[in-house]
């Protein structure tokens, strides 16, 4: 089967500016992040990247050196196809590691408590909330963030579908929505049932996802702009276009 993910992509194929969740930025064009930084605008992204939070994440130095546990430990990760050897404070979440230490701010910090889904990334192909994942727990893992979905200037089909169907308004939840949708379709391919599945006893491939199934399976991603109709339409379109793999056609019951 063709992987939807870009695990095997080479680093030099990555877009130069990986800060935008949707559009690769043509060279020389001003990016949203650069604009915010230069203009001093304190939009949501500005507030979230502000100094106090970064300090609370990074300051490991405890007063009592005798009782102090090690302030950093080694961690190896592959992120968007590229290996990284890192030193992290054990308290660092995967979300803060990506945003603060690895300059990958496409993954968003919404609630920071696993209640909104803005921080969704793919770990070894599975979607999780990176805000509740301690980075050290994922030593050796393959992480795919929104920055790793496009192939060069070619958008991932889910990114293109979100644009086509207006699956966002402010865009803050969008990278989490898209990563979640990519992980969700892979789950459906693997036959994972959901709360609205009529009979969980019937194992095997999931037939075409109904809108109710898409809504339920995407319920871990909150959109405060209420762009849900567009999100459902985008996910539905990609789901319908996906080739059913030989593996998923075979009944496992």
């Amino acid at each position: 089967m063709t992987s939807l993910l870009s695990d095997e992509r080479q680093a030099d194929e990555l877009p130069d500016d990986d800060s935008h969740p949707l559009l690769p930025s043509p060279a020389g064009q001003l990016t949203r992040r650069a604009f915010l930084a230069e203009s001093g605008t304190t939009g949501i992204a500005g507030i979230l990247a502000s100094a106090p939070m970064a300090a609370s994440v990074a300051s490991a130095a405890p007063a009592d050196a005798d009782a102090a546990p090690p302030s950093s430990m080694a961690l190896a990760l592959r992120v968007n196809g590229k290996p990284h050897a890192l030193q992290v404070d054990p308290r660092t979440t995967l979300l803060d590691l990506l945003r603060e230490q690895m300059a990958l701010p496409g993954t968003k910090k919404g609630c920071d408590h696993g209640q909104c889904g803005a921080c969704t990334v793919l770990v070894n192909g599975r979607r999780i909330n990176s805000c509740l994942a301690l980075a050290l727990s994922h030593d050796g893992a393959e992480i795919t963030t929104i920055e790793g979905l496009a192939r060069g200037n070619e958008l991932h089909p889910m990114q293109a579908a979100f644009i086509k169907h207006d699956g966002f308004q402010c865009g803050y939840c969008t990278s989490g929505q898209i990563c979640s949708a990519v992980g969700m379709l892979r789950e459906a391919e693997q036959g994972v049932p959901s709360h609205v599945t009529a009979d969980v006893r019937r194992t095997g491939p999931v037939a075409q996802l109904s809108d109710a199934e898409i809504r339920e399976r995407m319920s871990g991603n909150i959109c405060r702009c209420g762009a849900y109709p567009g999100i459902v339409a985008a996910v539905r379109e990609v789901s319908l276009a996906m080739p059913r793999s030989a593996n998923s056609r075979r009944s496992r019951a």
Partner: protein
Amino acid sequence: MKPFAFTRPTDVDTAVQAATQPGARFLAGGTNIVDLMKEGVEAPDQLVDINRLPLAAIEAQPAGGLRLGALARNSDTANHPLLRTRYPLVAQAILAGASGQLRNAATNGGNLRQRTRCPYFYDVTQPCNKRAPGTGCSALQGFNRNHAVLGTSAKCIASYPGDMAQALHALDAVVQLQGPSGRRTIPIAQFHRLPGDTPELDANLAPGELITAIDLPAESARFAQRSHYLKVRDRASYAFALVSVAAALDMEGSRIRQARICLGGVAHMPWRAREAEALLQGAEPGTPLFRRAAEAALAGATGFEHNRFKIELAKRSIVRALETTTRSTA
């Protein structure tokens, strides 16, 4: 977040030994404890990351049961063919909880150990006997809409937040434990606790004791034809239960041979409604009978200012769940 030592043992003995030290906590999926650490509710000196322990398998047992490894992820458990066909109630309950992302991270052992979402437990500026024994219960006179109506004490009215455990209690699951003094096996009914005078204890576990597996007995597969997990909540998905009902029937001709009912969201632990089960046994199913069973299940309930609605809601939910169960077919 307070600094902590981080260890990653690869065998159970080492993990248990490490966790026996004061201030140590196990870390599995992290979906609850990391959140509690961010809030300052938990401030461990040491996190024992158990994700490298070989406890993730889901295996059929020689005697016919199914063993769920403590570290099997909730999503993998809910999608396991043997669980789905023999114990669909457990799959349904897991799928009713949290979100796809959280179920991918959360483990079976961690699910049993998740802590209440009582807002006063989470707010370190408020008195809470569960978080800080002896400080009082803020929920008694506070915002207690999501709290317990059964088995409460003057010290604590928190409710158990999970879903999977209701199904496990209904199906008489058995918890495998390993601690500093060896291995033991306890029925899940003896695993979770009511608050009593010690609401700080959620479960009957010794310091350092680790859940290694959860066993579903072969006999409980007889409920596979007729079981249903009903979850009533403020929104359609991704919310904790106001009331939930794990219901299962084993029929013999037109009569109920055995019934199982376990309630969620109404007590400090999954609440087996054994009086209701006794009423149903040997009877022919029907709505009037289900209503009598529901009345029996909630006979001892006491509501508080904001959660009295739960008593009638639980009764109606029991009736609905049983009705759905009788409509289930092979």
